[in-house]
């Protein structure tokens, strides 16, 4: 795109080599190293300039300087330095742009993964590696506060630090692990499954990815703020959030970067899925992973602006002294919760529907059977999409909103169990009479189905208003959300990584380590989170640093199990890293799957297909004699550039 063609691509594609620039002017880390501080200074002196002109004291108010310079302009400078905007700036300024310059496309050596890249497969891997970094960081925070909670009384942290650890744990896991990890898996798989050469907007795709580390770094950097990290939970309720120490603003702004990243990716998926399906790929022939990401993207596009708005407003209450959500001057305290949950309930589906898609792929392939009730599976996704927007206030049954609103919200919430149940029963029927290959992806898929059903059923308890009134804001909620997001989402992320690992890397992971990883995770997960149902119902509230002594024994069990759960991730990382480096060559289609990504080499060629495939049937026609999903001519099984 810009002028930094260094590897073989330019000769390969026959572009004239543009003028070479010095190493500090080329897009990359060296340029980011000086553009980022420069932009910080620009932001800083906008603030200082305005304050000096207005005569406000102090002229150098560091909270505003960090907010504008550190959280707005410096990240923009970083993105500019890395080269995310170069093509667009060339175009805007009327300079020549190389329309089909693929200099930043594809990975030819490992360092290419650390640059701005427009190849959806590279971006997918970038997403996964980045999100796992934040997964480990978030898990580490969890183990810190589990150490505090192992015994009643205060041992290691003061209460504000404790609240900060809890809040940052949830925020990292939700905004910079689960949501973008799914975006990473889908980035890799969806264009291949559609028979498309890339995403519809590859440069926007790169921008989406590079905004993510900004969000994660802001969340982590809040620990350095005076007064500590944001400490109001990941829900950040007003008016508490507008009265908290400065760390709170890191949350408000981090969510903006993560949200912008999500929205841009979702638009990209929608356009890709609607316009770039291969010939013959009707909606009713799309793999369910594509269906799942289609519905998820609709949810993201519609819902995410609401959390962006809520976080801006609550931040304005703090920094601009507005009264959106403060009771003085006519603010609407419960308004925050309505807007927040109007995003954050659909966000629960944003965090599980892509997982449903992954499980559908794996269960069908590993059972060697078509998905049972394919159309109803797709329709149930749309059912969840529609119902998902009508249930937000079930998070507010005790919040003090209008009493009558609780009944319709309860009914719509209970009804979501119906399409979800359809999916679970269809997976079970797909297993039945299949030829089940019980390998690591399948173990995680079956673990997911059983654990997610527990999470779904505890959701029924919470939909029933009287039970919710008792269980709200207790450890029962913590148990429920972890059965849904860990037993649910994280299990599907693991399943998906094991399933597509041979396609991403061309190598096979170690099956024995994979199974060991599954069983340690499965057992430690249940020992960590199942007892939380009990302590919660019995009277232990969530988000407390100290608790009544009667819950001491179970909390000790939970804490020890949580450390084992943390340690189980080490097995996964060891397996993935060593297999990536020197695992056995996997071949193009180790699972004998029918979807298109398995019909090309592993890893796939840089532009996926030499010739766009022709889709001729459904994606799961296992056991149907002679059935094929797609016909590929050139490009299939051709070795990649590695």
């Amino acid at each position, binding site marked *: 795109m810009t002028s930094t063609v260094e590897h073989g691509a330019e000769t390969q594609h026959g572009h004239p080599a543009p003028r070479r620039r010095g190493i500090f002017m080329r897009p990359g880390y060296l340029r980011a190293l000086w553009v980022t501080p420069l932009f910080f200074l620009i932001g800083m002196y906008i603030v200082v300039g305005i304050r000096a002109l207005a005569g406000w004291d102090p002229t150098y108010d560091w909270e505003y300087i960090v907010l504008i310079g550190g959280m707005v302009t410096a990240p923009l400078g970083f993105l500019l330095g890395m080269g995310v905007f170069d093509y667009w700036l060339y175009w805007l300024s009327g300079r020549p742009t190389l329309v089909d310059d693929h200099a930043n496309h594809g990975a030819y050596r490992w360092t290419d993964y650390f640059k701005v890249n427009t190849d959806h497969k590279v971006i997918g891997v970038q997403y996964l590696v980045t999100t796992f970094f934040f997964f480990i960081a978030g898990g580490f925070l969890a183990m810190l506060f589990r150490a505090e909670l192992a015994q009643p009384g205060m041992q290691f942290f003061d209460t504000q630090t404790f609240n900060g650890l809890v809040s940052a744990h949830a925020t990292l896991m939700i905004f910079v692990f689960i949501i973008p990890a799914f975006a990473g898996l889908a980035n890799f798989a969806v264009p291949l499954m559609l028979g498309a050469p890339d995403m519809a907007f590859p440069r926007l795709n790169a921008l989406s990815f590079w905004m993510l580390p900004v969000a994660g770094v802001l969340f982590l950097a809040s620990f350095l703020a005076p007064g500590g990290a944001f400490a109001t939970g990941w829900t950040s309720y007003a008016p508490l959030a507008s009265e908290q120490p400065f760390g709170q603003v890191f949350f408000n702004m981090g969510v903006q970067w993560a949200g912008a990243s999500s929205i841009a990716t979702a638009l990209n998926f929608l356009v890709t899925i609607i316009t770039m399906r291969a010939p013959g790929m009707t909606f009713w022939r799309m793999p369910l992973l594509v269906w799942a990401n289609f519905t998820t993207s609709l949810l993201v596009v519609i819902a995410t602006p609401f959390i962006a708005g809520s976080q801006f407003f609550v931040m304005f209450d703090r920094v601009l002294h507005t009264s959106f959500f403060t009771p003085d001057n006519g603010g609407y305290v419960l308004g925050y919760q309505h807007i927040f949950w109007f995003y954050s309930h659909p966000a629960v589906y944003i965090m599980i529907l892509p997982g449903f898609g992954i499980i559908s792929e794996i269960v069908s392939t590993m059972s060697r059977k078509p998905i049972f009730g394919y159309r109803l599976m797709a329709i149930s996704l749309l059912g969840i999409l529609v119902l998902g927007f009508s249930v937000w206030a079930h998070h507010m049954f005790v919040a003090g909103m209008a009493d009558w609103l609780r009944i319709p919200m309860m009914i719509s919430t209970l009804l979501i169990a119906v399409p979800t149940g359809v999916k679970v*029963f269809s997976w079970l029927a797909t297993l039945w009479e299949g030829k089940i290959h019980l*390998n690591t992806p399948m173990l995680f898929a079956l673990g997911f189905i059983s654990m997610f059903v527990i999470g779904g059923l505890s959701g029924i308890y919470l939909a029933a208003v009287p039970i919710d009134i008792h269980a709200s804001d207790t450890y029962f909620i913590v148990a429920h959300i972890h059965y849904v997001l860990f037993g649910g989402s994280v299990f599907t992320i693991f399943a998906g990584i094991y399933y597509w690992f041979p396609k991403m890397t061309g190598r096979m992971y170690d099956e024995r380590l994979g199974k060991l990883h599954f069983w340690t995770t499965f057992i430690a997960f249940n020992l960590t989170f199942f007892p939380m149902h009990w302590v919660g119902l*019995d009277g232990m509230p969530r988000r407390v640093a100290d608790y009544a002594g009667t819950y001491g024994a179970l909390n000790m069990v939970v804490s020890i199990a949580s450390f084992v759960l943390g340690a189980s991730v080490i097995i996964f990382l060891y397996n993935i890293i060593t297999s990536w480096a020197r695992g056995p060559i996997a071949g193009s289609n180790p699972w004998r799957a029918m979807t298109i990504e398995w019909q090309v080499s592993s890893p796939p060629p840089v532009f996926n297909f030499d010739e766009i495939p022709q889709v001729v049937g459904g994606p799961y026609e296992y056991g149907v004699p002679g059935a094929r999903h797609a016909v590929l001519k050139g490009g299939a099984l051709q070795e990649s550039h590695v």
Partner: protein
Amino acid sequence: MIHRGAIIKMVVIAAVAATIATLVAVLIPWLPESASEQMDRITFVFWFATIICIGIFSLVAAVIVEAVWAFRVQPDDDTDGPPIHGNTKLEIAWTVVPAILVIAIGVVSAVVLSKNADAGNHPLQVKVFAQQFAWKFEYPGHVQTEELVMPLHRAVKFEMQSVDVIHSLWIPQMGQKQDVVPGITTSIVITPTRTGRFTLICTELCGLGHSTMRAPVRVLEEAAFEDWLAKEHAAGSPGAAGAAGGAAGGGQSGGAEAALGKTTFASAGCGGCHAFTPAGTDAQIGPDLDGLVADAKKAGEPEDAYIKQSIVDPNAVVVSGFQSGVMPTTFGKTLSPEELDALVAFLSGKEAK
């Protein structure tokens, strides 16, 4: 084709497993022993939902285990399963049956919800004032207390207000829970069914002292409750003196002020974060108030002015080793001038003895 026999077999296995699981589940005291009529009903809904949920989970688990048991193949087996694409009758069944079950849970819940919100004809009205990090209760006749005392078998209707952020009132054994929201009044009904001592806890994260925001609860026989209330009323409970401070006028003696200072210290929740020997508190979240006089000297300010400023505008001077922005800044609004002066006097040690 999925055979009817297989479906019946799995349903029977699941029913047996569910029965066993239910028998085990009822042995575990999931919920605290109920102490209110509302909790009795919540417990009923809980078990109603639990039996349905155990049944569903047993079916899912039985099918997964049986499928892996019966249909697992070796890794080198490259045959495919039968190409079954679906079964309309089965798909209708697993759409309709769960819908009926969840609607049943919904109907039971709606009925219980409306009963639990019904305060009857003669509820006892108790006002609740929540603030970071303390509870205050006001009974008819302006009797204010820091302990919640409730009469047995009489509906208590709480009218709740918060002066700063959102809190939430919950007594686990009594089930009911309600957020206390600044700017609006929320309400809740509890009808105690057994006497004893309980703990009221805040369940909405309200800042650094959240986990210490508790209040003692006592349920008394109706007659004992009336005695208690009359005694509190006659004594002019310490809290009532504060609330009625303006009416009591300047008649308060120095001794009364000292008492007021001490009760204000307790009712404003100071002890949740601060150690102060005269009040018998030893929390370590905020600075040790036994060193207040020395801190004032260090800041070079007159003692009383320093203490008052530290209560009303806590971020003006922050003791080294502590962070600004942590202590609530609302005490200037929530304490009456009398309470504030009494608290300053109590903290400076002048009137405490």
